[in-house]
């Protein structure tokens, strides 16, 4: 296989670059090692925040790209039909000693070009956040911050990229890079070799390993784990903005944030791991996250019953302390886009623009397409807003809109079929596109139904349907097979 550009990694970074490149008349292939885009790790497990951009050290790439990405997301989310709410953020100083940090952040934000930052206190602060810790003395308000669904964003970017001609190869993992005469010529994968004039390494947690395949070993990626807890939509309204404590050197701290779907999320903590595949939640981590959350919103302490699930994500923390977005003189034709931890989600569209610029400077001829379609048709979720819908027409067009499969999130069979037609092949793939299984019963009711629909639509036997690819089969034993296999006497 041959291509002009090969992108390694189907997370938010890789898919954003793919979609940006799809505006041009150039062949692009994206490879992703998991069974679906966004499955890799950081993209599906983070706080889902669009940062305003005051956290990052002025002069760094993050400081430049975060505010730019933040402003690009409005139009992008709208074109891609990705849910997005610009709810603003507050950094709460819980004692007088913390107030100088707020002033530092405002100063930094101004240098980074962030608009609208101001300090709020007293009545105004508690009007904005009635449930905030009563000891809070001041808050840094950033109106440009927001929340978005990161996996839906990556999925939408990949769909729009595909719409515009990008090839996405799933379950395809880079195993080596072929170098010749100081040029990176091709990437070896488990599915054969792909020859590419330009290789873009957006491999997230494994970007250092891929970079090493190309002979570049100037940085390492340390997996920094963050654990989270998600609360029932019942608690919606308990917090109105992205609520931060004052940041530390290690991380932005444990936040309490409304999600774009109406839940409340608390987290993350921050601990470096040895294993890049360690996505385990821990009991100490849970207590740490909860205590951090209670510091900001104390009423959460009496609402442990409203927790619906917890999970962990790994930040791809670079040893360079900033994003690594650059081409190399040796080998040519290889661009690293690595260490994209927070504010990676926010920066993604701006990172994509930067990568396209780098490719242009490296000599790639990029002519804009006449027929680039910026719009991605959304998966329609009518029953979420049933008060606003005149359903008669909808169910007569497709009666499956009248069949609710995920009761907690009001997901209909029509949406699940749509998700499967757009490329979902697994239970989690359906979940990330439709929210089926993300509600308070966590798939207890809908899992059997979704599995059946996947089997029917994709023509695979039920026993082959997986949770997220590989060996994660959900129902491996048809009735009576274990008995007939002679297991029991």
């Amino acid at each position, binding site marked *: 296989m041959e291509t002009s550009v090969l992108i390694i990694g189907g997370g938010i970074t890789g898919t954003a670059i793919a979609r940006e490149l799809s505006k041009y008349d150039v062949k692009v292939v994206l490879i992703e090692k998991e069974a679906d885009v966004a499955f890799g790790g950081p993209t599906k497990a983070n706080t889902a925040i669009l940062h305003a951009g005051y956290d990052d050290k002025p002069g760094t790439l993050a400081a430049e790209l975060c505010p730019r990405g933040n402003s690009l997301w409005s139009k992008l989310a709208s074109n891609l039909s990705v849910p997005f709410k610009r709810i603003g953020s507050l950094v709460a100083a819980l004692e007088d000693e913390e107030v100088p940090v707020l002033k530092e952040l405002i100063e930094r934000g101004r240098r980074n070009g962030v608009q609208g930052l101001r300090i709020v206190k007293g009545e105004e602060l508690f009007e904005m956040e009635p449930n905030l810790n009563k000891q809070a003395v001041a808050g840094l308000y950033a109106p440009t911050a927001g929340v978005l669904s990161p996996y839906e964003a990556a999925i939408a970017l990949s769909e729009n990229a595909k719409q515009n001609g990008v090839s996405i190869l799933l379950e395809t993992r880079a195993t080596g890079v072929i170098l010749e005469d100081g040029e990176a010529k091709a990437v070896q994968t488990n599915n054969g070799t792909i020859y590419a004039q330009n290789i873009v390494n957006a491999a997230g947690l494994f970007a250092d390993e891929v970079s090493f395949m190309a002979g570049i070993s100037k940085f390492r990626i340390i997996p920094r784990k963050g654990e989270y807890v998600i609360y029932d939509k019942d608690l919606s309204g308990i917090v109105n903005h992205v609520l931060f404590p004052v940041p530390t050197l290690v991380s932005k701290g444990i936040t309490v944030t409304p999600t774009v779907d109406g839940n409340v999320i608390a987290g993350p903590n921050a601990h470096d791991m040895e294993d890049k595949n360690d996505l385990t939640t821990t009991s100490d981590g849970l207590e740490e996250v909860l205590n951090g959350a209670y510091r900001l919103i104390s009423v959460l302490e009496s609402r442990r019953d409203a927790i619906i699930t917890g999970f962990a994500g790994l930040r791809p923390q670079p040893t360079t302390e900033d994003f690594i977005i650059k081409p190399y003189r040796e080998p040519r034709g290889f661009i690293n886009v690595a260490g994209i931890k927070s504010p990676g989600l926010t920066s993604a569209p701006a990172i994509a623009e930067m990568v396209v610029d780098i490719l242009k400077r490296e000599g790639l001829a990029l002519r804009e397409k006449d027929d680039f379609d910026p719009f991605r048709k959304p998966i329609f979720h009518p029953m979420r807003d049933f008060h606003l819908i005149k359903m008669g027409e909808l169910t007569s067009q497709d009666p499956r809109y009248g069949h609710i499969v995920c009761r907690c999130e009001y997901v209909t069979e029509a949406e699940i079929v749509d998700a499967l037609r757009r490329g979902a092949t697994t239970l989690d793939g359906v979940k990330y596109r439709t929210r089926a299984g993300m509600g308070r019963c966590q798939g207890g009711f809908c899992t059997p139904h979704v599995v059946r629909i996947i089997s029917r639509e994709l023509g695979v036997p039920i026993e082959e349907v997986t949770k997220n690819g590989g060996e994660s089969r959900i129902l491996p034993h048809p*009735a*009576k097979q274990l*008995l*007939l296999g002679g297991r*029991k*006497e």
Partner: protein
Amino acid sequence: MRTETREIVCILCPVGCKINVEIKDGEVTRIENAECKRGIDYSVQEVKSPVRDFFTTVRVKGGRIPLLSVRSTKPVPKDMLMAYASELARIVVSAPVRLGDTIVENILKSGIDIVATKDIEKA
């Protein structure tokens, strides 16, 4: 002379007497802590020939659902539960099925029938 003591929790009423049974050469020689005659009878039966209600599923062809729930018409010997389960694993019945239909007569020559416990219409 082999003596054994066993504790049997009686299931016949909520008191749940923990009945101590002494067994010599397979015969019950002493019963302690049973509050009523039913409990005594139950503990003796549990020692000599314990029985259980038997119920499982049977595969169905051409029905609205793929499994039929079935039961035995009488309690069965406890040590035959898995044998009956394995035997019924081999068969497939065709829809329609009516509650009460005999699915297997005289299963494994036990004198006990297996009957359907629900209706299943054709798909």
